[in-house]
């Protein structure tokens, strides 16, 4: 019977193609059904505020300097003394991102010392004129109550709620780059999302061990102390940040069912 199955060999492909007709489809009908985005999705940026309404951006231009696509333009200005915009000495007076150039690498997020710029899950940013793709502070900065802005209105395609889903960058990398900090909330509370919990899957439930602030690297297994270092260096209001953990807007849950 060997010759017989040899003869049928070229026809075995017909069985294969016929079988495929009853297999499930893998296509996602995009505008109708949307996939759940990965937690660390890199969408468009927002400029955050502290929960007291102060802007986080201090106009340091580190984001513009690190940007490999050179799509960020920042100009800082001195804070007006009687009505400061940001907690520090200076603030981001002009802040523009050219979304046509941006490669969504999130290096700006990594570079930012105050977590002012973060990425969100929204990527529906199509425009009909190139000039509209340059996002200015008007579009980037969230409102005082934490509502993000977008040039296009909320709709079936553009889910503004995704702008409240922060990126995973800060949660994915521990503050010092040390794995020992995993499971520690290293995120400053913001008006957009409040204080976010540690990323899922990280061992936040370990037995806490106190670090020696002088020699943090000496301790093997550490937990987070109230960040004195951040308060000093980052011009942030440590007390406000700590309060925000309790009083800020409701934290966005890890469940991304938007």
């Amino acid at each position, binding site marked *: 019977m060997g010759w017989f199955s040899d003869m049928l060999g070229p026809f075995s*492909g*017909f069985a*294969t*193609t*016929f079988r*495929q*007709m009853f*297999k499930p*489809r*893998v*296509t996602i*009908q995009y505008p109708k059904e949307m996939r759940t985005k990965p937690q660390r999705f890199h969408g468009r940026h927002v400029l955050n505020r502290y929960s007291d309404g102060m802007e986080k951006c201090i106009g340091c231009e580190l984001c513009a300097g690190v940007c490999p696509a050179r799509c960020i333009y920042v100009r800082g200005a001195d804070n007006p003394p009687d009505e400061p915009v940001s907690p520090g000495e200076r603030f981001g007076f002009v802040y523009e991102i050219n979304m046509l150039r941006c490669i969504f690498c999130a290096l700006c997020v990594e570079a930012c010392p105050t977590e002012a710029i973060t990425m969100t899950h929204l990527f529906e940013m199509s425009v009909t004129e190139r000039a509209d793709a340059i996002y200015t502070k008007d579009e980037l900065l969230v409102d005082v109550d934490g509502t993000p802005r977008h040039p296009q209105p909320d709709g079936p395609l553009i889910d503004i709620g995704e702008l409240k889903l922060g990126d995973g960058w800060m949660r994915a990398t521990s503050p010092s780059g040390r794995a020992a900090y995993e499971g520690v909330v290293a995120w400053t509370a913001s008006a957009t999302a409040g204080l976010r919990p540690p990323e899922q899957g990280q061992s936040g439930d370990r037995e806490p061990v106190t670090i020696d602030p002088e020699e943090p690297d000496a301790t093997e297994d550490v937990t987070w102390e109230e960040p004195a270092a951040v308060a000093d260096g980052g011009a942030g209001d440590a007390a406000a940040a700590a309060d925000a953990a309790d009083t800020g807007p409701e934290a966005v849950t890890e469940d991304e069912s938007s």
Partner: protein
Amino acid sequence: MLSGWEIFLEAAIKVVAIFIMLLVTVILLVWIERKVVADMQNRIGPSRAGPFGILQTVADGTKLLFKESMTPRKVDFPLYIIAPIAALVPALLIFLVVPIGRPFHIGDRLITLQGTDLNIAVLYFLALSSLAVYAVVLAGWSSGSKYPLLGAVRASAQMISYEAAMGLALVPVIIFTGTTSMSGIVESQAGDWLGFLGVWNVVLIPSFVVFFVAGVAETNRAPFDLVEAESEIVGGYHTEYSGFRFALFFLAEYINIFNISALTVTLFLGGWAGPDFGTPAAISWIFPIFWFFLKTLGLVFVFVWIRASLPRMRYDQLMAFGWKRMIPLSLIWIVLSTLAIGVRRFGLPWS
């Protein structure tokens, strides 16, 4: 007595009805093909225009109507214009001889559900399918461009080779049924076998296989689509055509698929013959039409199935398959089937 205008009216109604039916069928055919191929490739296929994307072909056709028909500088214009027409006309004409249902009476007049009951229908089909080669060759030649010419050269060799096999495959059918009229061939296949199956000409299985394979080659379908192999010679003979002229080629190709399927059904699978479950005459007229279209669409599915399953043949394989396999097989089968029919009719020579 029939007056002249009555005959003319009957013919006109039939021709217009067949024309409309073919156009509607092509719309369905393209949709079926795209859906089935998509299914076999784990895709979804057209789903936007109309329910399940069934109007996608209408949208595409409308788009082609409104597109510019560009004329390249080097074309031989009269031939360039004639070619798409020459492709469509034989395709439309072939279907005129295919019976799609049981003949019925209006008063004392017999109305056949076919364009015309030609007594040489099989020859008529062979003649017209040979004419289809001209369209491809003329299109390739008159385009004044290299890829169309390559496609045309391939087409002339391929279609003529398989034409021979196709004609030879029809000989046992004619010997077996003793007629070249389509309605005669269908009637000879009527009757019951095991209570419900028709006595089809499937007993001529080698002829059936050769005819259908040659039909796939005649319509330039995968795996014999070297004539319009997009990965090698862009679009083949219709590379330089756009707009409505291209639509005519496209239309002709799909009508030809339907024609070949319908003819295979008529010649080998019993045509419209099928059980009508003893229903009264008021309803039973619909069953022959239903069976005809069911069988034809089944073969169309096979066309698509072949396309989704088999890769394109190499050119020497194509020629070797045509000349060294199909034609000898047909010839041997003609001898064998003639002997068998002779023995059945006249008895063994020594008896």
